């Protein structure tokens, strides 16, 4: 499963460690929320970055106190029709100021890339190679956006008002 990060297919430095499996001595790991919450300090003390896979039906309240020490948060799309993680992503980015890697994992197709990027995701575990290859092109598919999100893209309404302002200023 290719990982797309910063717009390119890259090697995944994080190792998914299953519950109960032994942690590698060093290197970056992604662990489940249960494993992380059982003993966050022990995990954060080891050398190597730590990321947490956060389920889409779990409140973010337990995660928020640890955000500044996490290298990655992976939010889950069990199927691509389940959109709960979009709300979690926006809350992490826009309300809790999380600025580390925000990873989308699960059933990820190219058809979600723009929505995900707008919600704050910057890393994507893409299901199909062809979709990962199409990432850059897909991200250019839309140039007009109706809603403001934390991604800073200017909305259609604001563009219109800017245009109107510059027109009236030029008269």
């Amino acid at each position, binding site marked *: 499963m290719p990982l797309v990060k910063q717009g390119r297919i890259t090697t995944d430095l994080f190792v998914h460690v299953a519950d109960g499996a032994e942690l590698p001595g060093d290197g970056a790991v992604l662990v489940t929320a249960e494993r992380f919450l059982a003993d966050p300090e022990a995990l954060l003390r080891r050398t190597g970055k730590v990321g947490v896979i956060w389920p889409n039906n779990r409140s973010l309240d337990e995660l928020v106190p640890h955000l500044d020490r996490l290298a990655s948060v992976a939010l889950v799309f069990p199927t691509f029709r389940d*959109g709960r993680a979009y709300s979690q992503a926006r809350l992490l980015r826009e*309300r809790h100021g999380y600025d580390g890697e925000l990873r989308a994992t699960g059933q990820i197709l190219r058809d979600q890339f723009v*929505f*995900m990027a*707008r919600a704050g995701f910057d890393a994507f575990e893409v299901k*199909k190679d062809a979709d990962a290859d199409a990432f850059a092109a897909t991200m250019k598919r839309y140039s*007009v956006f*109706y809603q403001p999100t934390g991604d800073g893209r200017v909305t259609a*309404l604001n563009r*219109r008002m800017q245009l109107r302002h510059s027109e009236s200023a030029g008269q």
Partner: protein
Amino acid sequence: MYAYDELDRTLINERVSEFRDQVKRRLSGELTEDEFKILRLQNGVYLQLHAYMFRVAIPYGTLSSKQLRRLAHVARRYDRGYGHFTTRQNIQFNWIKLAELPDALADLAEVGIHAMQTSGNNMRNVTSDQWAGVAPGEIEDPRIWSELIRQHTTLHPEFSFLPRKFKIAITAAEHDRAAIKIHDIGLRLHKNADGETGFEVLVGGGLGRTPFIAKTIKPFVPGRDILSYIEAILRVYNQYGRRDNIYKARIKILVHELGIEKFAKEVEEEWKAMGDVGLTLDHAAIEEVRSRFSYPAYEKLPHMPDELKQAAHDKLFERWRKNSVSPHKVQGYSIVTLSLKPVGGPPGDATAEQMDAVADLADKYSFGEIRVGHEQNLALPHVAKRDLPALFKALDRLGLATPNVNLVTDIIACPGLDYCSLANARSIPIAQELTRRFANHDTADLIGRLHINISGCINACGHHHVGHIGILGVEKNGEEFYQITIGGRADENAQLGTLIGPAVPYAEVADVIEDIVEAYLALRDRPEELFVDTVKRLGVEPIRERVYATR
């Protein structure tokens, strides 16, 4: 009319190109049918019994003549020469070929029409009063707000994969023609004590197998805050709405399970926590959208022109005028409803020829504008009264002057088992039979306002729960049976109907309806007492007794 600018046009063209890619990937096998299903639904494409069905958005039911002609073109070129107007002011085509869909969408995009979010678990077409902007006594034109909400909810990055579909309706008139109380969010535009414009926000209405009338969650949300408030509702729903059972996934179930107070509290907390996220609509933003709506340059016309006086002796004209012509806010003008419910016809269908002809009539008599109402009729919203006689003649020739608006034969019906793979029973033939039974206009006039709504299954696309008489098709041992309710209504006094008795087989439905109507005529207080008011006054029992006494 709202005029698209370059940005709106660009967006829908970008959506067409994305959909073209999705269809290509499906046809090449790159996408599985399961994956493609979700993607096609997001663009209005269903797989029905015989073919793909394609639903096209008509935001808040407003069309230009140019757009209507293009819909006629799609009907002719890609379908079988007709289209079906729906209870959410959209139009659907029943015989579309998948490979041709992207071209049909591209043709529509040229005139600013799209099919985004006309199905799927996302925010559907925002609907409104079909008389918006022309109804006397309106607070203000609700389409300004409809358009703001349409834009905000189109391709929303957070809310495109909700637990279930989500429908918003807006009214700004005293009489609710938009059925806001049976929507996921209903918005009633009004002014508070300080004269400020805002919304009463209702939430959790909906029909289907567990019908609910929407409840007020907040009596007044200022207009400038409406987008952030809607966003807060959606965020609560997106996170907590049920996803384990498709029949319990609508927001009405969440509201019901939490209770309206608890749900309101969750929304309020989320709304407060949001802070300023760029969603506040200042005066300039509202005016920006308002400025993109154009209004006709009405003439100063007499209240009673000579043409109307002269036509008054024509009985057919007078009957049509009294039934289908409504007061306009501007003196000398009228709103004309075009019945798509001819005797023996399927409710809501229009042929390509009719659409083209209506577009021409709109150009000639209605400043090029057409409306679609949730009752599945069309309207010409700005007709000068002096033109009414000429318009009547033209509509009559087209079969669009049936004087049955709001009468017993103005039936709302879903496509039913003739088209739909979900249906248990046929709807259209029941409607057709009823229009024949009540074909005599004098009888229909005598009966007065009476809404019959028919659904072919529990999903309630024909709004049977809120019909004055509701007919629901069910399946019993492989046979089509129909449950009949009375006393429902979808307006400001919205209420669910009550079952009148045991389900009846297909062949007996029209007889039972006739008996119900006869019982009403015998029981009503006076001719002005409407069917639904008689049921309210007496309850179901006296009518049940009369109808089922001999059964």
